[in-house]
């Protein structure tokens, strides 16, 4: 009997498939298997000056722990530094600029503490026929980027594909304004979430045209690069995450406009359903969605309330609010470490809609019971950033 149980356990372990990279990254990315030593934070100045990659010491054993060690400027301003992504081999970082349609490629493989800007792609709208690049997402040897709109900043967008080195391969149009791309390789399925066009998101919030808000997620056959199903939900389904366990058929999005957590699920016939799974509370205006490596918890940042929520999803169809932590106005981007024990948090959204000047990077500890605790000491204060106040947005660890 013992032998049978052991054999089953081994089979289950094998069937579980390869270990994932950090929970919020593409599963194709080589994983970080040790505590992080350095953070790269894509940063834009509040005033004049070029956008830059902040290099932050996150090695707890270091005397400069929590300090901004250096900044790597990109040589141009007004880019609207926003999201980043590793290439599959973790050797390069692609940093996208929402406003200027540029990509900045940093080499970090050879010397992780000293990122080097190795290529700038200036004419992305012209090359791809798309604008408003949002999230670079790794597939083997290549990068997919969700692009919000057509080349002039209006109308539907699509997904652009490049080599890791920055050479354009192809574009694929959508009928909405793509925000993020997430892939489940086991199923050959990709989900793109959506938001608004570039012209809209670069305008003050009171100028946003409600008619421009997308409320769809697209399901793609990845190998065919083809949309096979479009699902409607509440407005602006920003971040999307598949459950991490191999062969899991479900995942979640956050609706910024609907203050809600939505669940997508693939049925036995391969068709997807999409349903509201939980109310996040009026005024939450969720900004980001992350997850624990064991698929037990989802983390939701509330841009509108300065709060991070932990949702228990051990019963995936019935998420349950497990814990909240306050103390960070305009809580937005998050990054969960490989072991799930730490969650880094920044609080700039877009320069056009930010409502606080108190920009910072903070750290939350996730306990084994799923309870969160804001570190009272760890703070990288971006109001005191080198060369003046700056807006911190997306983060990567190494």
């Amino acid at each position, binding site marked *: 009997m013992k032998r049978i149980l052991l054999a089953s356990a081994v089979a289950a372990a094998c069937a579980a498939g390869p270990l994932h990279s950090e929970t919020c990254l593409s599963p*194709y990315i080589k994983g970080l298997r040790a505590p992080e030593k350095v953070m790269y934070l894509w940063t834009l100045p509040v005033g004049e000056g070029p956008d830059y990659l902040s290099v932050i010491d996150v090695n707890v054993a270091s005397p400069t722990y929590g300090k901004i060690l250096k900044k790597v400027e990109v040589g141009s301003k007004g880019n609207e530094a926003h999201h980043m992504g590793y290439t*599959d081999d973790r*050797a390069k970082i692609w940093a996208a600029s929402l406003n200027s349609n540029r990509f900045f490629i940093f080499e970090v493989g050879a010397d992780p503490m000293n990122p080097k800007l190795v290529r700038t792609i200036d004419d992305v709208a012209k090359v791809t026929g798309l604008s408003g690049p949002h999230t670079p997402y790794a*597939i*083997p040897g290549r990068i997919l980027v969700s692009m919000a709109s057509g080349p002039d900043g209006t109308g539907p967008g699509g997904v652009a*594909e490049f080599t890791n080195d920055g050479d354009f391969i192809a574009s694929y149009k959508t009928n909405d304004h793509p925000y993020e791309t997430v892939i489940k390789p086991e199923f050959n399925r990709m989900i793109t979430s959506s938001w608004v066009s570039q012209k809209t998101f670069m305008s003050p919030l009171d100028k946003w045209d409600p008619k421009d808000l997308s409320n769809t997620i697209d399901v793609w056959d990845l190998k065919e690069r083809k949309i096979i199903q479009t699902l409607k939900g509440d407005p602006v389904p920003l971040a999307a995450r598949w459950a991490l366990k191999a*062969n899991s058929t479900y995942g979640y999005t956050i609706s910024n406009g609907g203050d809600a957590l939505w669940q997508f699920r693939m049925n036995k016939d391969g068709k997807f359903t999409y349903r509201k799974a939980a109310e996040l509370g009026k005024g939450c205006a969720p900004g980001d969605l992350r997850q624990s490596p064991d698929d037990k918890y989802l983390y939701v940042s509330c841009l509108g309330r300065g709060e991070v929520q932990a949702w228990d999803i051990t019963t995936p169809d019935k998420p349950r609010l497990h814990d909240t932590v306050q103390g960070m106005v305009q809580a937005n981007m998050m990054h969960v470490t490989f072991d799930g024990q730490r969650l880094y948090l920044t609080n700039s959204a877009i320069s056009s809609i930010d409502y606080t000047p108190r920009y910072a990077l903070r750290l939350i500890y996730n306990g084994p019971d799923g309870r969160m605790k804001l570190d009272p000491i760890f703070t990288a204060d971006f109001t005191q950033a080198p060369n003046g106040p700056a807006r911190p947005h997306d983060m990567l660890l190494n």
Partner: protein
Amino acid sequence: MRRSVALALTLALSIAASAHEKDDRAAAKSLAISARPHLNVIAPAPGFALRDSGGALVRLSDLRGKVVVVAFIYTSCTTVCPILGQQMASLQKRVNDDPLLRGRVMLLSVTVDPARDDAAVLASYAAKLGADPATWKFLRDSPEALTPVLGAYHEWTRTMPDGDLDHPARVYLIDADGQIREIYSLAFFDPRQALIDIRSLAK
């Protein structure tokens, strides 16, 4: 009694969960393979000339007209490489069993660890996997010859504390004109999909 109820409940939940997972796996199996792959031209495949385990020089340019699969491996790898070896063996069988593909496809496994993978080690590894040299060759060379090739394919290596090698886990699919048309992750490589992709390029 309480313990029995708890045990029964746990067992019931576990059976329910396992049934659900079985459904998930079935769904995955039916969707994982795409019959109509969209194989963009990604980039020209960097050329190379490397020795096979018998010492003969294999030039990529001499393989024009064939669909080529290039995998980067090392024989002492204990993580994904052994699984990939079995999958490449499965792919070799599917190619050799197909009269339309046999002789029109070449599989190449290139070691990233030439210091440990000498010709004899590679030959033994190939024999264990049942490699048919007409379809599947194992390549190595001196570090001077191999290093630029690995560099051209962005195949860096890093020695881990336990002596294992870390390297980008990729398999390249190259068409008859020498263009890279697909890059697979070793972790998610599926010989069934690779065969469909090869057939699509061999048309």
